[in-house]
């Protein structure tokens, strides 16, 4: 492909799944029951695996750019890597960028909260990821389409598992219902960003990766409503307003997450297992 304008969009896609995978992994050893602990750990594994494929693809794309194209994305590259004197690799992108260089949705970086919060976020995100990746199957970047195809099978499990939990909590006890409603109040303001067009989508479209955000939103609402109906929940009527992640403007929680996630690669650059 001669066009590299979707480099930032690839980072956005990768950052979403890496950061959510990192958040979910905080439950490892702390799940409410062994099976659910394992379930969430498996979901994290899938998400981090997807991130790895996306970062590897982005790194390969960068390495084949000419100097003109490289200069245009220089602000997105990890500073420590520039001293390594070698080609860009997936781990550099995952672990060595600064906070403002991450382009993930804010909803993915929020602290894990209680079980209801983690479940509802996963359900919202998986329902979104399913529609988005379905559109990516049609894109001009065949490697990205391949990653989407691979990931979609996993996303189907994530959506099914989290939806069943949303129903169990919504339709469960007074306490579980109170908690899932609280989670909804907290999460809802962050759902708008999923469907808000930014420069990322414009740049991606230039490279032949066209996502139709309104279409994704309509399908997403349909899925969420179907789950909520069984859970006895209703979608809030308030307008979601929180945004900024796609432009590198993050919540106060992001820095702490990165500090933990990046510690090893920062302290021991190029460390390998």
């Amino acid at each position, binding site marked *: 492909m001669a066009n590299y304008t979707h480099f930032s969009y690839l980072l956005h896609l990768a950052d979403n799944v890496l950061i959510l995978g990192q958040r979910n992994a905080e439950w490892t050893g702390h799940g409410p029951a062994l*099976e*659910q602990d*394992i*379930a969430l*750990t*498996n*979901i994290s*594994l*899938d*998400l*981090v*695996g*997807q991130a*790895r*494929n996306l970062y590897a693809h982005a790194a390969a794309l960068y390495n084949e750019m000419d100097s003109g194209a490289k200069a245009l994305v220089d602000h997105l590259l990890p500073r420590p890597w520039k001293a390594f004197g070698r080609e860009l690799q997936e781990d550099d992108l995952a672990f060595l960028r600064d906070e403002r260089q991450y382009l993930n949705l804010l909803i993915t970086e929020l602290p894990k909260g209680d079980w209801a919060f983690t479940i509802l976020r996963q359900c919202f995100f998986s329902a979104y990821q*399913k529609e988005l990746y379905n559109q990516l199957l049609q894109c001009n970047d*065949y*490697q990205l*389409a*391949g*990653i989407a*195809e*691979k*990931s*979609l*099978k*996993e996303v*189907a*499990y994530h*959506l*099914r*598992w989290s*939806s*069943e939990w949303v129903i169990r909590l919504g339709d469960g006890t007074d306490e579980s219902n109170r908690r899932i409603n609280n989670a909804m109040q907290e999460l809802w303001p962050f759902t708008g960003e999923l469907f808000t067009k930014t420069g990322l989508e414009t740049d991606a479209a230039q490279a032949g990766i066209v996502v139709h955000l309104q279409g994704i939103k309509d399908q997403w609402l349909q*899925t969420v409503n*179907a*789950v909520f109906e069984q859970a006895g929940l209703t979608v809030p009527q308030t307008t979601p307003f929180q945004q900024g992640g796609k432009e590198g403007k993050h919540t106060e929680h992001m820095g702490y997450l990165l500090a933990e996630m990046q510690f090893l690669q920062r302290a021991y650059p190029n460390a390998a297992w």
Partner: protein
Amino acid sequence: MNFLSHDIKAVDAAQIWPILEEVKDPEVPVLSIIDLGIVRDVVLENTEVGQTIRIVITPTYSGCPAMETISMDIRLKLIERGFRNVHITQQLSPAWTTDWMSERGKEKLKAFGIAPPHYKPQVCNMDLFSDETIQCPRCNSYRTELISQFGSTACKALYRCNDCSEAFDYFKCH
């Protein structure tokens, strides 16, 4: 396999496949990587450094940690047989499906106590809340229930048999 135009090469590649049969899935050691259906192609190329073997594999799940081990095991097994120039590449599309698992592999799974993926998948779709009826690998009863959609590895779910009371792994239809 496909794309082999030259007769002599075809013979050579045919010698590689049985060697790959000896490489096992580290997480389900009764299955070879051929049984699993993750080897997509074996291509022999004549290069300046001699004959090079290119092996194309596809991951079962994006984050499957076994893929690293499998690549290493392939390399070691081929070195053992004197093949030094081995290139292993991963291919994501078309995405791996349990349809590619061999029938023999499914029988081995069952004998090992893991319910194999359905021969004819019932609900390998994206719909919410569709359930599969899974047969108990021990007593063959269909009176089973799901304990957890996620099991000991990414590719398995956990079930319980209501007749013989055994809990068992199900290799998920994917």
